[in-house]
């Protein structure tokens, strides 16, 4: 009897104790957290990068991590955190701030609400938000770097429409999310402006990490007369390149070129995330840092569309691509000086 009740009650007591101590500690959480942070942040030499995707994508995340390395060279203590679960974003930011990190860099729009929640709690920590909407109203310790990816998407549309022989071009997105909808609409506008009879197919992989399906989608597109694809699918883009190798088609790629991308990638539409990040963080010791919005677009060389470095390995049409880039450069100038208006539509369809 006693043995049984003993074992039955122990977990209850344990649980109760745990619950109570948790309650008490949780109650004083905010105060003690901030006290610790204020002291550490004074050093001002630690920077943490938080991304919603894991490193190794050979794309934006790796690009940012490379930027982190530049900061390390500049004497910063760096830390990289891949926070793949959106519900952990806020707590991750809070933990970093409480640990005394002086600069927290986050990337992509997933972090808008967490930053809004956390940044005001830690006024001494600087936040740099790469690729985001500007906050209204601005938060004094948050800098947003707005990457205009629509413009290169528009240019990609121009390029694709110019290069396409079949008159059918494609867009492959990672997941169907608003920024990619916006890119698609810009791509479509650029293509239509160049060639009114152009036909545009689009599809979303459903994941930034499923190259297998990316390959199948691209293959289906190539089988449906598409001969140029703008791949905005992160890790899944590699599958698009593989399919293009098979089909002898062309890809405008969103990641860094590698030996595998030779032969089919005609241009890279991407962003200098890492450079921009390093540059902006380094304005802090320089004393020129400012909160609020900073634009990184075509004009600032934050985003770009440029011919592939390995363009010569493309079997057919390298010369045409080069020729097309004259048009692209022309349009680029017009975009920068406002003569061409790039649409911004984050709705589906």
């Amino acid at each position, binding site marked *: 009897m006693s*043995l049984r009740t003993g*074992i*039955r009650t*122990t*977990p*209850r007591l344990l*649980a109760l104790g*745990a*619950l109570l*101590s*948790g*309650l008490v*500690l*949780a*109650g*004083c*959480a*905010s105060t*003690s*957290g901030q006290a610790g942070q204020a002291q550490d942040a004074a050093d001002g030499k630690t920077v*943490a990068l938080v991304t919603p995707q*894991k490193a190794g994508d050979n794309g934006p995340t790796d690009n940012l991590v490379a930027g982190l390395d530049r900061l390390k060279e500049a004497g910063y203590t760096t*830390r*990289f*955190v*891949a*926070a*793949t*679960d*959106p*519900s*952990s974003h*806020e*707590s*991750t930011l*809070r*933990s970093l701030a*409480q*640990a005394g990190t002086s600069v927290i860099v986050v990337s992509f*729009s*997933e972090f*808008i*609400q*967490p930053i809004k*929640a*956390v940044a005001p709690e830690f006024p001494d920590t600087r936040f740099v938000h790469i690729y985001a*909407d*500007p906050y*209204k109203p601005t938060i004094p310790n948050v800098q947003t770097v707005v990457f205009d990816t629509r413009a290169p998407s528009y240019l990609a549309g121009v390029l694709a429409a110019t290069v396409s022989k079949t008159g059918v071009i494609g867009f492959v997105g990672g*997941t*169907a*999310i*608003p*920024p990619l*909808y*916006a890119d698609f609409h810009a791509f479509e506008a650029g293509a239509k402006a160049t060639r009114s009879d152009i036909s545009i197919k689009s599809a979303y992989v*459903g994941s930034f990490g499923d190259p297998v399906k990316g390959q199948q989608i691209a293959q289906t597109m190539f089988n449906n007369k598409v001969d140029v694809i703008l791949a905005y699918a992160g890790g899944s883009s590699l599958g698009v390149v593989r399919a293009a190798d098979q089909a002898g088609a062309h890809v405008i790629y969103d990641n860094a070129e590698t030996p595998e991308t030779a032969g089919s990638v005609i241009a890279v539409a991407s962003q200098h995330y890492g450079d921009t990040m390093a540059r902006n963080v380094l304005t802090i010791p320089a004393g020129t840092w400012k909160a609020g919005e900073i634009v990184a677009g075509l004009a600032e060389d934050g985003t770009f569309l440029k011919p592939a470095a390995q363009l010569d390995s493309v079997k057919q049409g390298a010369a045409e691509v080069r020729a097309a880039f004259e048009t692209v450069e022309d349009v680029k100038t017009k975009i920068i000086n406002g003569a061409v208006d790039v649409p*911004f539509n*984050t709705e*589906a369809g």
Partner: protein
Amino acid sequence: MRRLLGDGRVAEAVRPIVVVALSLLLAVGVFGLSGYPVAGIVGGAVEGSVGSAAAWTQTLRWAIPLLIIALGVGITFQAGYFNVGAQGQMYAGAIGALAVGLALRDGPAIVVVPLALATGVALGALWALVPGVLRTRLGADEVVTSLMMNFIAVLLLEWICVGPLKNQDGSGQAATTDMLPAAFRISDGSGVSPLMLGICAVLVIAAVALRSRTRMGLEIRIVGRNPVMAEWMGIRSSRVGLLVFGLGGATAGLAGAVEVFGPLGSLRAGFSPQMGFMAVIVALVAALGPVRTLVAALFFGALRAATLYLPVVNDLPLAGLDMLNGMVALWITVSAVPVILARRAARRTQGAATVAAPVEKPVEKEAVGEHG
């Protein structure tokens, strides 16, 4: 039940602890072997889970949804149904609750919040009843259907976040919905508040009461152990089945609603992707008992807090946690260790005597009831 848990209450209580401890050791061993500083990892883990008030907040923050879901999942398992769709049910509940919260954003919190939570509960239950009805009425395997419902819910959530409920602030680039009005939130971003702890306390008490103080709890257990006998007793297995699917879905839906009205404040595509599976593990570690579920949820909440904290202080990759969770699941239902040890001991004492004579259960045809 018996087969899962082995003999005796002592073994029942001790085994999960041993399994979890072994898995932890194994995982730490792997980390050490692959060159990560073991001391740093262990220290960081303790610091991030129970080392400070903030760490405790984190632990509770992750324990709360795990506890809420696992309580319901445990009830479903007790009735013998292997519903692995808690993830989808949580999303369904979160979507429902948020939709109500946003639609009535000008209403009084005292009315809107309960209404929204109730909607979340209802939607979670409905989401679970799809596999539930298919299982009890048609006999369609609930493992497959509830898994598929998870995949569907992930995509539905994504569509909600980029389509009908999309946040229109600024350029509308974030795949999130609008934030709920601050008055509606039942906790701040830390995810812990007296109200939420109160909800948890009520749920644990309700689960204890359901289990040991209601006829329903008794009938659920009987159906789980012998559905044929239950039918002969006048207990409708299929109705109990629907009920437990509904209950499991309801708690998962509530967890989703609580997440949205608590720490998140808005919906984000793909939030808490491992929560459903983790809750299954919590329920199993706890051997389906409500109070033990509380303890297990706290433990896994602490583990989650620790692993989210680890990258902040050292470079351990997140995948390490997934590996650890998997190993716990892999070992948790191991039940024959005492038998095997006893058998070996018996054999040793027997020495090389005549015929090796392991104790064997009678060879019997398994009674294959409705649960096949």
